[in-house]
């Protein structure tokens, strides 16, 4: 469970302070799939980074499973998937997945087992010995997800993991991610700027708006947990997407255009 209370985050830059997050409060329940959506500069990535202890809030409270972000990181409560796969070119797929396990000091046999398990989970079987440049962008991102899953964190933080992929690959990875979420029962926080992606994946959609970065709406999805791609044509899906769109629009109202 992630609890965010009245969090403010201000970056000091050369052009003066930037209010990246203002009065952000949010509860993420265990097993939730939460999407953060909003235009660039709305602080969605900053919020995710603050949860992962990569940024420190200026004000407010942030706990992950009751712990501070730093303690949660040390206790391996979450895995983080970045925008770019960030695989090491000198390591094979297997070697890349092994990396966090090496750092965390798992035993040789346990490393093998875990790698085997997550490679099956992300459907990369047969590609263990391939190097990143031998894989397509979608496969690289799958390897990156496998790496974040390898050490069994309960929470998966994902920062626009499919942002750089084409729509066909993205659709496929979206359904795979849903399957994976159903199988593993993990809590997932997912940053995106695609409305269909957010609505399709999430049990809860957090709509954010910029300057200062803040939450304008939290939408609880009424869609069933088990979803197929064609759910996107259903009336209910369209209704939720509409509400997300309105939330995004209202966030822009007070902006000088």
């Amino acid at each position, binding site marked *: 469970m992630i609890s965010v209370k009245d969090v403010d985050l201000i970056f000091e830059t050369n052009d003066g302070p930037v209010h990246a997050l203002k009065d952000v409060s949010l509860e993420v329940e265990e097993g939730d799939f939460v999407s953060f959506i909003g235009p660039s500069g709305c602080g969605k990535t900053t919020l995710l*980074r603050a949860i*992962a*202890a*990569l940024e420190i809030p200026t004000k407010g409270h942030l706990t992950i499973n009751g712990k501070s972000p730093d303690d949660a*990181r*040390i206790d*391996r409560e*979450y*895995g*983080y998937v*970045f*925008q*770019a796969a*960030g695989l*090491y*070119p*000198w390591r*094979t797929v297997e070697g890349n997945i092994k*990396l*966090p396990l*090496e*750092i*965390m000091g798992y035993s040789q046999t346990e490393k093998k087992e875990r790698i085997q398990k997550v490679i099956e989970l992300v459907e990369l079987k047969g590609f263990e010995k391939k*190097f990143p*440049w031998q894989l397509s962008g979608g496969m690289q991102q799958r390897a990156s997800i496998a790496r974040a899953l390898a*050490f069994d964190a309960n929470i998966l933080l994902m920062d626009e993991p499919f942002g750089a992929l084409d729509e066909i690959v993205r659709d496929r990875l979206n359904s795979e991610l849903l399957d994976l979420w159903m199988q593993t029962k993990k809590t997932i926080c997912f940053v995106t700027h695609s409305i269909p992606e957010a609505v399709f994946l999430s049990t809860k959609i957090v709509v954010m708006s910029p300057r200062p970065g803040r939450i304008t709406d939290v939408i609880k999805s009424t869609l069933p947990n088990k979803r197929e791609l064609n759910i996107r044509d259903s009336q209910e899906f369209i209704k939720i997407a509409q509400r997300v769109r309105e939330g995004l629009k209202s966030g822009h109202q007070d902006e000088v255009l």
Partner: protein
Amino acid sequence: MKFFNLIYSLFFRSNFFPIVFILTVIGIFWYLIAIPMNTEKVERKFKNLNSTEKIIQSWNLEKPKLPTPHQIVKEIVNTVFFKKISSKRSLVYHGWITLEATLAGFFLGTVLGILLALGIVHNKAMDLSLMPWVIASQTVPILAIAPMIIVVMNSVGVTGLLPKAIISMYLSFFPVVVGMVKGLRSPDQIQIDQMRTWSASSNQLLWKLRFPSSVPYLFASLKVGIAASLVGAIVGELPSGAIAGLGARMLAGTYYGQTIMIWSALFAAAFLAAFLVITINFIQNYTLKKMAILT
């Protein structure tokens, strides 16, 4: 057809013909320029020569102003293959003396360069303070510093290889520092953040990410560094009145007007530098292939 393909690839795919072509042009130019440079000496030495004989003599003087390629090649062949390696007249002997100092200095310079780069990358104070000094060190002409190093070390009883190696080190650490700082900083912010989310220690960050990322940069620096090392070793032999080494050979050549000796030492140094750079290039290709960075 196969023959034509071979010719075609030699001309347009490999660098064999371009190199041969440039060498030929340089050779022709060299022989041409040797004629006017050496004519004065020829005229002083021989009387009543016709112009053809003059030209031939100008290419074959004993102590010419500008020796011709075939004279240099003859001298090199002679001093490399027909002198005992232990003899002071053997170019192999002198080359080895210089090579020893070069390799020792290169090793010291590489270690120093890597250590400084690690300090600069890991320590804010060193990052802010060290680089100007490193750069300043290279703006001082080595010819000014080399005698001081030799003399100072001599006065404390250190002679021979070490002072020369120190001068080599002085020249070769610089490209390694610059390259390694860039290399150690080459990982993406994403990769560093990722390591943080895994609570990696700074040692793990260094060995698993920063160091492997820096390998291509390291090799580029080593190639510059080893050539600089050789220059350092030769320069180190000049002011010390050294009796052995390629630098000493050049110096002796200047004293006795043995231009052919100077040039052959010069060529030996050039071949040595080429050999060293090619060796590092080979190790680089092997390593990067092994690491799967180079494909």
